[in-house]
C-alpha cells in the first residue's frame, strides 16, 4: 500500500521535473533556466528520498545531500556568472565591506 503511494509520488515528482524541463528549455531568460534547474535539483533530491524508502535502503541517502550541495553551488555560480561575467572574483572591493 505504502509502496503504491510512494510510486504515485514518484510519478508526480517525475511529472513535476518534466514541467521544469519545459521551463528549462523554453527559457526565455537565463535566470528562468537557473530557477528551473534549481527546482529540478530539489525535486530530484526528493525523488531519491522516495526511492530510498521504496527500496528500504539507506545507501542512497548521501545522494540527497550531494544534490542539495550541487544545486546550491550551481545556482550560485550561474547567477554570479550572469550578473558579473566571472564566477570567482579576485577579491573584495574595498567599499564592499
Amino acid at each position: 500500500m505504502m509502496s503504491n503511494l510512494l510510486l504515485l509520488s514518484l510519478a508526480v515528482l517525475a511529472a513535476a521535473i518534466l514541467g521544469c524541463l519545459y521551463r528549462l528549455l523554453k527559457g526565455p531568460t537565463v535566470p528562468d533556466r537557473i530557477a528551473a534547474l534549481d527546482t529540478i535539483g530539489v525535486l530530484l533530491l526528493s525523488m531519491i528520498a522516495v526511492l530510498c524508502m521504496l527500496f528500504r535502503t539507506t545507501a542512497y541517502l548521501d545522494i540527497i545531500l550531494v544534490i542539495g550541495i550541487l544545486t546550491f553551488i550551481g545556482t550560485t555560480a550561474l547567477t554570479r556568472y550572469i550578473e558579473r561575467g566571472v564566477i570567482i572574483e579576485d577579491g573584495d572591493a574595498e567599499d564592499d565591506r
Partner: protein
Amino acid sequence: MLKMIGEMAIGAVVLLGACIGAISAFGLIRLPDIYLRSHAATKSATVGVLLILAAAFLYFLLYLDHVSVKLLLGIVFVFLTAPVAGHLTGRAAYRSGVSLWKGSVRDDLKQEDSSAQGPL
C-alpha cells in the same frame, strides 16, 4: 496494523510533498515573469521537499531503526540554502536586465539605481 497506518501516514505526507512540488513546477510554467516564477520555485518546492525528507527521516527512524544524520544534515542544508538561491536568482535576473512583468505595479529598486547612478 499500527505499522500499516504509520506507513500509510508517511506515504500520504510524501504524496503531499510531491504534490506541492508539482504545483510549484506548475507555477514555474504558468507565472509570467522570472520574479513571480521565483516565488513558486523557491517556496513551494522547499515546503514539498521538507515534507518528503521529514517523512523519510521518520520512516527510517521508525521502521529501520536508523537515525540518519545525513538526512538531517540534508534538511538543514536545503532549508538554509533555498532562500539564498531564490534571492540570488532574482537579483541576477534584475541585474542582468530582465524586465518585470507588464502587470507589475511598482519598482523601488529602479529608482534607487537611477539615483545612485550619477554620483558614483
